[in-house]
């Protein structure tokens, strides 16, 4: 599809419009219901955080899928989430929960796990399935270590167990700067990377003959997505599948692989998925069984989608 200036402006503005309108609506509804003070502020930030986190995770998914030319991956599959969680628990045990410190350590942990996954995958064969297998191995390793540490972490940080599934219960004002940083980092970087990622989708050599440095592009995309996803893990815990599902829905809807439009539409879809999952948790599950973390709800719906992709590939004899 031709992405002229009007189309580019429209699609790029979509996630911003979506976030702004939903937050404004939340504020209006709360005001209309006479909800004020701390509760209104909490609901506002919770809405804002689900939307920005969903957008950032979806963009990170687009970056990772394009840069590694692999439709089966996101930060969760590649072990970034579990690596970040492990670093978070370690920091909480050795030091304490301070947003800045845990965000930094989670970013380092997430990037370290990503590097490990890439190294192992490249040693296996470098194929897309090798990345999934390597990611599963690294995720399992850090998930196991995180589970072990969680017992100690719980004694120092009471919400440590929530981090295992991803929840927006802790939507406090002080987290705004970190969530916004993760969102802005991915959203702004897509303007720089999207055309380069389009070239990278066609192969490293193809990208190089177009004047795109494949290694530099891959490095920037990986660091951006790894850091953003890790920071979000340090705040809200592991949220899987948003990053894998949103880019696919975006490509199916737009019938193109052009990241200039796929990325912002995926960001809008990712925001919607997390917002709906969190709203579902609050409105439907809370009265029945208590609040189920949004990450668990996303996984319940995301896992079948992921399995569907694998089955589709298997049927075509490409696994």
């Amino acid at each position, binding site marked *: *599809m*031709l*992405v*002229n*200036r009007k*189309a*580019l402006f429209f699609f790029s503005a979509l996630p911003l419009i979506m976030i702004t309108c939903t937050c404004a609506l939340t504020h209006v509804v709360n005001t209309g219901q006479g909800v004020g003070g701390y509760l209104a502020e909490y609901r506002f930030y919770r809405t804002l955080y689900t939307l920005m986190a969903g957008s950032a995770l979806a963009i990170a998914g687009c970056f990772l*899928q*394009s840069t590694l*030319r*692999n*439709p*089966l991956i996101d930060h969760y599959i590649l072990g970034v989430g579990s690596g970040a969680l492990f670093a978070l628990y370690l920091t909480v045990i050795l030091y304490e929960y301070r947003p800045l410190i845990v965000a930094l350590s989670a970013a380092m942990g997430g990037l370290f796990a990503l590097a490990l996954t890439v190294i192992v995958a490249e040693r296996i064969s470098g194929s*897309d399935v090798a990345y999934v297998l390597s990611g599963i191995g690294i995720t399992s390793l850090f998930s196991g270590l995180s589970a072990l540490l969680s017992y100690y972490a719980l004694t120092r940080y009471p919400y440590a167990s929530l981090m295992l599934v991803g929840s927006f219960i802790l939507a406090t004002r002080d987290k705004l700067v970190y969530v916004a940083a993760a969102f802005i980092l991915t959203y702004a970087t897509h*303007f720089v990377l*999207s*055309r380069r990622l*389009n*070239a990278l*989708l*066609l*192969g490293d*050599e*193809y990208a*190089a*003959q*177009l*004047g*795109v440095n494949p290694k530099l592009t891959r490095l920037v995309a990986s660091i951006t997505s790894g850091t953003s996803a890790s920071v979000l893990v340090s705040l809200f815990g592991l949220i899987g599948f948003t990053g894998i599902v949103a880019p*696919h829905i975006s*490509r*199916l809807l737009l*019938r*193109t*692989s*052009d990241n*200039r439009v796929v990325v912002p539409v995926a960001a809008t879809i990712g925001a919607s998925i997390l917002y709906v999952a969190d709203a579902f948790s609050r409105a439907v599950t809370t009265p029945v069984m208590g609040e189920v973390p949004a990450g668990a709800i996303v996984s319940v719906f995301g896992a079948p989608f992921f399995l569907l*992709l694998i089955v*589709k*590939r298997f049927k*075509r004899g*490409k696994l």
Partner: protein
Amino acid sequence: MISTKALRVTYRPSRIEAISDVSVEIPQRTTTCIVGPNAAGKTTLLKAIARLVEYDGAIFIEGRDISELGKALRRILAYTSHVSVNELLGVRVIDVLLTSRYPISRGLADSEEDLEGIYEVSRSLGIEHLLTRRIGELSSGELQRVVLASALVRRPRILLLDEPDSHLDVALKPWLSLYLKKLSEGSTVVLSTHDPIFAFHTCDYFIVLSHGKLLYSGPYEDLINNATFLEKAYGIGFTRVELGDRVVLLPLYSALKAHVGE
């Protein structure tokens, strides 16, 4: 004109010398063919000219060292390589062609000029009906034409084509030959091929490589009058055959039979 001086390409970490001490001059606005057996260094020579591999020696385009051309090189030169994408990423033909205009596009958005350029090239190659198709759905022949289109949408002055005739049927090969000859009126076309009939019908200038070494570089007329260069490169006999309006050198099947028998 493209010229190479003592060109040497060594692949790491195996340290295999794919090209050693190759000095050639490729004339402007001609169709030049690089021929030679497998592992002769044909693709490596094309990649070196496109600055896609590390090399020793020097390569000049229109008198300028390509290492000093920077991004300008990507605007004047196009190299076609194989496109292989994951089906689930949904890459379509139009996506490939729009992406291929990257070196000459300005800004993030596409312009009407981009679209017009793509339609013009697609029409000339007969692939306009494929524009919305996914890459994975194309036949090998269709994909080959899409790859050629991806180079042409940039309107390069130099076109480097690695086996552009592979996967094409008997009707499409002569068509491509004529298409490239017409193209060479305005640009320099350098290609590699394994098909002698296609090579001798298409090209006016030849480079013969064997085991990374240059055996011959010169015009078509000189090569067909002296089959020893091809015979030395391939290690088999060649015979002169008149095919239509061109004389071609074809491998001697009788000699091959004896060779296989041994």
